[in-house]
């Protein structure tokens, strides 16, 4: 592989490192992907590149490290400005996309994780209810943002598609591990179709981890978390 002045430090199960890779793919930027096996310990390179949080993903452009997945996506959009736009051009639409991305990170994905980690049935049911409630809100948001187009970003994958779509691997793995359907024809038909389109997009399909592989990994993490306390996400 040719040496690139763009590197992504990531971890294959991490939805956050997918975000950086999808954004680079949209811009057709060649990059070197360095996979960190975080459950085996953090590399010196990672600790040096992100001394504050010590987390992946890190984008390294030349000798400059950029941390935090959504900050990385915006950096990619602004730096490779001649490629297809990732963020909407209208400030209000940008604010809406950022709002939903923050909601997904702060409220929605933690509920997905809770489904797997919950030890008691009540806690599990509550987490499932929160995820389903969120999906109904996102189904509505999809209608408003996409306006009948294939993606939240319109004709092409945009910021909110990336922010949300990166969680589809874990959503499907969670459905498999718990035997429940979260995205459905009856409640979230638009999102179900969007999910299929997102996962099969050329910029996504090679970086989306296999559902079975994630489910197996998930079982290992849950066992560890119930034991001591392990983190896989950046």
């Amino acid at each position, binding site marked *: 592989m040719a040496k690139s002045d763009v590197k992504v430090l990531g971890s294959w199960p991490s939805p956050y490192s997918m975000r950086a890779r999808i954004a680079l793919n949209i811009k057709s930027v060649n990059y070197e992907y360095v996979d960190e096996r975080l459950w085996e310990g953090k590399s010196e390179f990672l600790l040096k590149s992100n001394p504050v949080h010590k987390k992946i993903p890190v984008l390294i*452009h030349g000798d400059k490290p*950029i941390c935090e997945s959504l900050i990385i996506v915006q950096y990619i959009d602004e730096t490779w400005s001649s490629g297809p736009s990732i963020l909407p051009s209208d*400030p*209000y639409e*940008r604010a809406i996309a950022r709002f939903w991305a923050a909601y997904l990170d702060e409220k929605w994905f933690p509920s997905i994780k809770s489904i797997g980690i919950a030890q008691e049935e009540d806690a599990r049911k509550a987490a499932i209810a929160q995820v389903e409630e969120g999906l109904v*809100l996102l189904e509505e948001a999809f209608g408003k943002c996409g306006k009948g187009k294939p993606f939240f970003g319109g004709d092409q994958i945009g910021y909110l598609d990336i922010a949300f779509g990166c969680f589809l691997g874990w959503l499907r793995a969670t459905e498999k591990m718990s035997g429940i359907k979260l995205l459905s024809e009856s409640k979230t038909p638009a999102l179900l179709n969007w999910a299929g389109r997102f996962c099969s997009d050329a910029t996504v399909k090679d970086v989306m981890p296999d559902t079975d592989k994630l489910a197996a990994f998930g079982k290992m993490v849950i066992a560890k978390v119930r034991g001591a306390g392990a983190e896989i996400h950046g």
Partner: protein
Amino acid sequence: MSEEVVLLDFWPSPFGMRMRIALAEKGIKYESKEEDLRNKSDLLLQMNPIHQKIPVLIHNGKPVCESLIQVQYIDEVWHHKSPLLPSDPYQRAIARFWADFADKKMSDLGRKIWATKGEEQANAKKEFIESLKLLEGELGDKPYFGGENLGYVDVVFVPFYSWFYAYEMCGDFSIDAECPKLMAWAKRCLEKESVSESLPDQEKVYGFVLQMKKAFGIE
């Protein structure tokens, strides 16, 4: 064309303060509506149904929620005056990083300092000072995080200064002793009208924190 700008706010909220500063820096005229968070207005519930929190910025009838998003929004719409984010993409990424860091650390640790005690409070104080020192490192010799003028990180971070006295009293420690450079930066920010008019008096904030402690049954 007239622009209608409304801010739903609550006087001690550092998140609300960010918007007050940003709107003042941009010279934007707006109507401020003070919310009683124990009795939220219909307008607040309608404009921010998901989080039901302030601040909410309502621009020509359309709501923008979450203070970091709001500050970026007004920076983008009123981009011709007092830019808050730098123009270089890498500098923007750095600013966003430190704003995110300050936001998460100050909110979480600050709350633990006034609302907990014993080991939990001690750990929060330690991490709080460590976080401030990292921010001091980022500030370096610049007058502001934004360089010669107030920038995004200054706007996001300086509101917490109005809570420092409350943290010091609740945590029985001195922030000035540990982070004198940061305190100097905060005072420099307060020399600007946009900041001094937006931050409440520290003693008033402490009084509010004492009320909250009583209401939540925290000693």
